[in-house]
């Protein structure tokens, strides 16, 4: 990743602050327009409803001018795809009207289902930038009909494309279209989505050309330089305020889906003046299971962790991450090499993001939060004629002033919405018995961790199989500063006619009619000593049922009078004193 600060060679024009600000807003507007186009034109709900996509407008370096993301993890890593394409073909190869496609996990970082489509932008015959899009395609020919949870090499995960010319000077390269189409179970949908991505690129090209026409190349480049400089200044100001030093955090995935060995994730955040370096050395070597990712995606995850803490409200430009550099040793799970499997690339990244925030907590206590429940927590039911896959919401970590939020989507999924019960029951032979907040699952603290959820379902069809991918039982949502952890996840699987069992990951378990699962997602960690939580807030939690009376006494030292909603203040004082001593 090239993130060294540099100015454009042609940057000679002086540009006024008004034009700079107008262009800064215009670049974001162009990206929003590309995004609207992609979402409007896409074929599959995973894009137009779940927003599993992102778009960006880049200059020719490539540095981001404006971007719009549906998923946080797609933050600022489209340029890796552009760079790889330019490296392969050379700048001189590009022609107006060209479109390129790629999905190689080791280049773009994600799983093969995420397809990047990009196009060069020309102005008066000169290469001036790129429009790039990424969207999740419903099927790219993996060994199973859904994301396989048990792949051990990338060749099982679908068609793999390095930088490939999809359209040359406005004409499709039919051979490529045919290869892509022949390798998908849903070729109509994916070709439709390809068209939507191309339409979004075309809008980006035209709007960028309009701006160049209106303001002139020199002015736009000069303004771009200033926009990047502003983003950089803004970030460096915050990073400089962090004491120089090295900050560490470490955690483990439960396993890689193949064995039951925990998988280590280790983070070192080094702050030196206005520079921050995130080093992932010490994290596990690439593993047999499918939890590896390409470097570009590790960089993107580090950027998310950084962005959560450093100027989260500022829009992302080519200057935003100049204060940040990322190292991940080649061959580690964060810089995986062929043939490492990458299907669940996002699982370690959720943990990685939490760990970056944790490493910075001691020096930025009011900009950081305890850990969240951690992963998408996927449940699949696959029948003869249906496929139901569902993520689970869980608890988020508490901050210095706020309880963690209850029942939210995990950090890598952003604005994704869960499925309504009424929709699932209408479309699939699945019956819900209960969908509720999981009481007592939030990590106790001065501010409390958010609570997980409970989803109890029964299958009402024959010949169904169940797959599960639940994580973070061994490193649940941890608390900060003497607070407790959130409760880890648990899935009780009751196959009809057998004894109930607890499982977190399983592949294609036969799941006959009448079988049930009770999926309980984890809570977030607390923040600060639980015995410092104001008594009335503990009381409120008890009255709401989020905390049981037993847990109120055990974790918070708050004792209720028998058969009453009133707190026994004397007993509480005694309990809290004991708790305090117990820690010291």
């Amino acid at each position, binding site marked *: 990743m090239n993130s060294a600060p540099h100015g454009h060679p042609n940057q000679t024009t002086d540009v006024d602050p008004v034009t700079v600000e107008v262009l800064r807003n215009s670049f974001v507007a162009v990206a929003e327009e590309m995004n609207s186009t992609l979402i409007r034109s896409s074929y599959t709900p995973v894009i137009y409803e779940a927003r599993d996509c992102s778009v960006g407008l880049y200059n020719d370096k490539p540095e981001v001018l404006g971007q719009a993301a549906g998923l946080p993890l797609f933050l600022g890593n489209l340029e890796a795809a552009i760079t790889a394409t330019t490296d392969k073909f050379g700048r001189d190869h590009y022609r107006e009207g060209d479109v390129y496609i790629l999905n190689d996990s080791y280049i773009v970082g994600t799983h093969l289902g995420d397809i990047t489509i990009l196009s060069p932008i020309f102005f008066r015959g000169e290469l001036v930038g790129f429009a790039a899009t990424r969207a999740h395609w419903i099927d790219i020919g993996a060994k199973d009909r859904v994301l396989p949870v048990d792949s051990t090499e990338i060749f099982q995960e679908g068609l793999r494309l390095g930088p490939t010319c999809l359209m040359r000077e406005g004409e499709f390269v039919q051979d490529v279209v045919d290869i892509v189409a022949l390798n998908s179970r849903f070729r109509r949908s994916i070709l439709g989505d390809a068209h939507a991505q191309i339409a979004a690129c075309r809008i980006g090209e035209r709007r960028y050309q309009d701006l160049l026409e209106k303001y002139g190349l020199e002015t736009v480049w000069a303004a771009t330089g200033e926009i990047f400089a502003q983003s950089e200044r803004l970030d460096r100001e915050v990073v400089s305020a962090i004491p120089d030093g090295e900050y560490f955090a470490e955690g483990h995935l439960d396993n890689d889906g193949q064995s039951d060995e925990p998988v280590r994730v280790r983070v070192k955040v080094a702050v030196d003046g206005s520079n921050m370096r995130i080093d992932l050395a010490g994290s596990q070597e690439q593993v047999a299971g499918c939890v590896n990712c390409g470097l570009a995606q590790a960089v993107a995850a580090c950027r998310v962790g950084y962005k959560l803490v450093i100027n989260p409200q500022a829009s992302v430009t080519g200057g935003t991450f100049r204060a940040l550099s990322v190292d991940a040793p080649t061959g580690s799970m964060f810089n995986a090499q062929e043939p490492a499997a990458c299907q669940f690339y996002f699982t370690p990244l959720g943990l990685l993001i939490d760990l970056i925030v944790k490493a910075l907590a001691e020096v930025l206590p009011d900009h950081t939060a305890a850990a969240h429940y951690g992963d998408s927590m996927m449940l699949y039911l696959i029948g003869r004629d249906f496929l139901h896959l569902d993520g689970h919401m869980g608890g988020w970590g508490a901050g210095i002033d706020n309880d963690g939020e209850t029942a939210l989507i995990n950090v890598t999924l952003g*604005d994704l919405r869960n499925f309504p019960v009424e929709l699932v029951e209408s479309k699939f032979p699945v019956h819900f018995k209960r969908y*509720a907040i999981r009481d007592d699952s939030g990590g106790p603290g001065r501010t409390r961790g958010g609570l997980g959820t409970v989803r109890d379902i029964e299958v009402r069809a024959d010949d169904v199989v169940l797959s599960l991918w639940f994580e973070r039982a061994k490193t649940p949502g941890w608390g900060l500063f003497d607070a407790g952890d959130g409760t880890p996840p648990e899935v009780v699987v009751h196959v009809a006619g057998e004894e109930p069992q607890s499982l977190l990951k399983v592949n294609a378990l036969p799941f006959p009619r009448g079988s049930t699962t009770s999926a309980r997602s984890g809570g977030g960690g607390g923040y600060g000593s639980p015995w410092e939580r104001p008594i009335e807030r503990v009381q409120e939690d008890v009255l709401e049922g989020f905390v049981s009376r037993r847990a109120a006494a055990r974790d918070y030292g708050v004792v209720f009078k028998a058969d009453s909603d009133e707190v026994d203040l004397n007993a509480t004082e005694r309990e809290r004193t004991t708790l305090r001593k117990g820690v010291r």
Partner: protein
Amino acid sequence: MSGSHIAIDIGGTFTDIVVQKPSDGQIYIRKVPTSPEEIAETIVNAVQDAIGPSMTCTQLMHGTTAGMNALLQRKGAKVALVTTEGFRDIYLMGRGNRPDMYNLFYQKPEPLVRRRDIFEVRERIGPDGKVEVPLEMRDLEAVAERIEEASYEAVAICFLHAYANPTHEVAASDYLRDRLHRVAISRSSSVAPVWREYERTSTTVLDAYIQPELRRYLSDLDVRLLDGDLCDDLFIMQSSGGLMSSDRAKNVAITTVMSGPAGGAVGATALARQLGHGNFLCVDMGGTSFDMSLVVDGKAATVTESSMEELPLLLPMIEIHSIGAGGGSIAWMEAGGLRVGPQSAGAYPGPACYARGGTEPTVTDASVVLGRIDLGSFAGGSVTLHPERAHESMERLGAELELTPTELAEGICEVVNNRMAGAIRAITVGRGVDPRDFWLVAFGGAGPMHAAFIADELDISTVVVPRHPGAFSAWGMLNAELRRDFVRSFQRIVDPSGTQEVSSALSELKEEAADAVSAEYEACNTITFLPFLDMRYVGQEHSLTLQIDGELSSDPDLLRDLFHESHLTRYGHNNRAEVVEVINLRMAVLGQLLKLPEVGKSTGRKDDPTPDRARMIFDRSEADVFVYSRQSLRPTDTVVGPSAVKEPSCTTIIPPGWTAAVDAVGDLVLQRNRKVTVPVHPDADETNEVRQ
């Protein structure tokens, strides 16, 4: 003899009153300050004032904020929510999404009921409407006791799949109504009988939350207006852009939440009819926000899903998008760069030129420095402006950015106009329409000042500043029709047998609707039934709501064609091989009220308009321009830019390159002169081609 027609729109700062008298058909506008504690009093006074002694008001159209304010100030009722056993947390959990994706501390919207206000009862309906577990009346008895004990003021009932079979909800609501007195009851199968339990619950809870307050308010108005014989009929504006009787409003409180803003879009549809142009982009720029809505082919664009304060609502509503850009938006410096907004100075301390303690430069200050605001008549003369303060604020920030005060002032306007144009572009592109096919209609205090500049950015050639830009929403209400929306969940594949059933169900729905509105629509001279179907490709979650004529619904081929075509327009593609299904039937019933013909001003004039002169700045250079009083302009007058037209509620700026003409009824129509078209689109033809 018929009395006056009056429309009253309650705004945050001002209440707008539009009166049309039967004697001359002319429209009279008044603006009075809004005093939140005495809104009913204000209305009664306004009506008395307007009609004079021993006269009546035949129709009073009212945009109410009673419901919306109860929500915004969190002063609604204490609500108990009754749910299916096992699902009491649905409302608290929501859909789990995080719109603010890099915010570690994201918090969901504050729910309107606490968890201990939510009660479960044993019952279960399946997705097909079959009863799986009968309603357990003993559970309901226990809930009724709790509601009495804890003195809840309202109850919301939302059971799973109640849209498919409402019998349990109806039984529960009947039981609770009998058992509990003075408790308002809202059930989801009546408020929003469509699927998706969280959104439906949220809609039902909101209805229950604002219902008691809205009832109190409307009953009070009834007593004062109707019993006082001041007024024959009181109509309330709905969020959908139609009117309803105040009696009905008491039972469907939730439909009033966007009562005021809906008036603007309705006004634009009336303009569309009058001007013979179907496509309008309505922009309302006030002190803190910039609101946009669309009229496409003469119809206000509506949505069936939206949100208030982040709480979802499943209701037909005028589609209104808002961004935080207004006269009060503050310009500031970040990391060496100029920024405008989203922070607003509001009314207090307000822009620097208000001299109320605000010192930071705002968009309004910029307009003052550029000479674009008439100092004497700002906000109807209610605020005295201090141009020297505006200058000082520009000087301070300008020095830091190395800009002169006028350069900064023009820059601030440029930035904010560009952002507003960008927001419009994203909305139109998302809908699959091209902004260049639209006219801009500008109203609100600051809209007419910025409209031509926004139009330039979007390559829009025509801007309309309606004849009453400061009271356009109220004027829209005066022109509105009665409307009532019926919806029934009805899932069928579009094939010969499915459409047969759809068609007969629609006929049933029409009969039901006709019965239901008969009393309310007594005063209407014509009643129109508009059937709609919510359709989608099998497998999609969201649907398109399409208006159909009765015959169409029984012909599967025509119906499918209509859907494929609409899908292509809205989403850019379609799939004729895929199976299409109907999921909801909708029937809108419109009732045309007897309107007084609006009489325009005469073209004759007593004397020539004698414009004032002012110094204004355009494109970094000062110009000596004419400022006309709107009052003095007559139909067929034209005003060449650069110039301005002032009136008590706002100033319209006609920039260089634009010409304004007054139409027959007094609207100001601005057009860009052909030869000075600003943003160049050399590939305009190609653009059209690609967009198809």
